């Protein structure tokens, strides 16, 4: 824990652009050189509603991708935001040039293999966002990157054209068949594993999806790093609202904070069937 959030800073970020993509908004924020410390899997926490807001808590969003030009001190970060409730809708309504109060970067990052490996990246809905940044890093380390994205319907698939450059293959599944194959992201995993194409699984998306992937990965004894999403009040480990039951190294179940012991966690240790319950 001691190293978590060591590089976190509360900064004022400017909205460089705000584009609607399907049901999401792609927000590009200038966060300066802080960008250098952002790793795939990290998230940010943003104040919403403006100065006199009655919404007092920050909202958490995964960092999708970053880019920087160290010579100019410029660093941009991309977020993919689904307009859900008041806070995220406010965020989606912010015009170019608006200033945002952001704490960045937060939480754990995806672990990167030290040797080139075959990586399977699985994203549900806006959960695909951080996977594109991850894919770039994996690719640069010489990994093979296969990606599977799913959602209920086509407009909830986030798969930008630029992003596809970093992946070796991309499969899309929708539950209504409006894009890609009719079905779920979990459908093709077993055969990919069987074909020996999967050394490690990375995933991000709804908790039920992460649980299903864990089930498959556990059975095949494949490492599964997943980015979880629990309701967070503080995002920095001080409030204890975001806990999940997770098995310790000594085999005991503890209620760990998904904001600082996560969001990236070892899928095999999360007690998926007990999420929302209390560890005994």
């Amino acid at each position, binding site marked *: *824990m*001691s190293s*978590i*959030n*060591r590089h*976190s800073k*509360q900064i004022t970020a400017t909205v460089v652009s705000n584009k609607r993509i399907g049901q999401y908004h792609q927000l590009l924020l200038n966060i300066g050189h802080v960008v250098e410390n952002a790793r795939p899997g990290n998230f940010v926490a943003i*104040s919403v509603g403006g100065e006199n807001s*009655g*919404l*007092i*808590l*920050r909202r958490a969003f995964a960092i999708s991708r970053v880019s920087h030009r160290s010579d100019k001190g410029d660093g941009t970060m991309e977020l993919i935001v689904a307009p859900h409730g008041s806070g995220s809708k406010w965020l989606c309504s912010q015009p170019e040039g608006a200033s945002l109060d952001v*704490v960045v970067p937060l939480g754990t990052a995806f672990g990167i293999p030290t040797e080139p490996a075959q990586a399977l990246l699985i994203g549900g809905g806006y959960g695909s966002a951080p996977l594109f940044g991850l894919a770039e890093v994996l690719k640069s380390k010489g990994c093979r990157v296969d990606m599977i994205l799913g959602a209920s319907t086509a407009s909830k698939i986030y798969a930008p054209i630029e992003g596809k450059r970093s992946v070796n293959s991309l499969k899309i599944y929708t539950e209504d068949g409006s894009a890609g194959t009719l079905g779920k992201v979990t459908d093709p995993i077993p055969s990919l594993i069987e074909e020996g194409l999967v050394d490690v699984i990375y995933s991000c998306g709804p908790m039920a999806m992460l649980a299903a992937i864990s089930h498959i990965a556990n059975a095949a004894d494949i490492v599964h790093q997943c980015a979880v999403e*629990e*309701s967070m*009040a*503080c*995002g*920095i*480990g*001080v*409030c*204890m*609202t*975001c*806990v*999940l039951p997770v098995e310790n190294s000594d085999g005991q179940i*503890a*209620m760990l904070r998904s904001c*600082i012991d996560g969001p990236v966690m070892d899928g095999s240790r999360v007690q998926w069937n007990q*999420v*929302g*319950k*209390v*560890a*005994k």
Partner: protein
Amino acid sequence: MPEFDFSTTLGPAWFPTPLFTASGCASSGKELSQFFPLRDIGAVVTKSIMLKARPGRPTPRMAETPSGMLNSIGLQGPGIDTFLANDIPWLLQHNARVIVSIAGENVDEYAVLARKLRSVEGISAVEVNISCPNVENRGLVFACDPQASRLVVDGVRRTLGGDIPILVKLSPDVTDIVEIARGVIDAGADGLSLINTILGMVINVDTMRPHLAGKTGGLSGPAIRPVAVRAIYQVHQAFPKIPILGMGGVRSGRDAFELVLAGASGVSVGTATFSNPMAVIDVQNQLREILMSKGFNSLKEAVGFAHRDE
């Protein structure tokens, strides 16, 4: 012109500044140390610790409300022994001043906790959180029962002796907070912490059930500040010599100043830290500036200033 004196005392304990974390809103301190040096604030008030390790309540544990939030953590924690072995040494090593908050399930447990703290070097004060259910009395919250709260404090006082100051944290969910305050002062409290959260509920309109797994939760944040100011004002009026550690909805120096004017000798910042990791430091700097700009020579001059000429 003399230098501005920002220091404060809570009973026999002295602090260089009057800004504190609020119990349960800074975990054990470590996490915030990524954002500022803990020794820069008055003290870290640790999350209420119980005798045994506790997993706390199921999730969801929080709901945002207009200018506030509900929480229902259920005092998740490692238990006093692990806490004393790990957290306290870490805090002291980092030169943080420490106020340990304790919570028990029955009157005896508080005394046992006090006994464990008695021999620990370097603790500035103990905050006795009596806003927890008394398992021996139908789960009635100690702080809502004058007799039970008095007994708790009496037990802690006897066990601790006179060395470590005792602050007793009261709940605003009572008909007459002055009466509860009187009881715990009689039982030996050196100071009072005001206020704990207000009992509330949010119903999730999608599931059409209470949103929190624990159904009810504690309301905190700016929404409750007027209740905190009122409670501090009432209690300071009744017991002007008893120091008060005030809390409830403080997110700026202006807010802290309001609590000080009402009678708080120190101010804890809780929920504001969730939206601003630097909140305690920011409030501290702003309060110092406001006090100086108003012409006060010390924090102490301002404590309870709203009561003047009465």
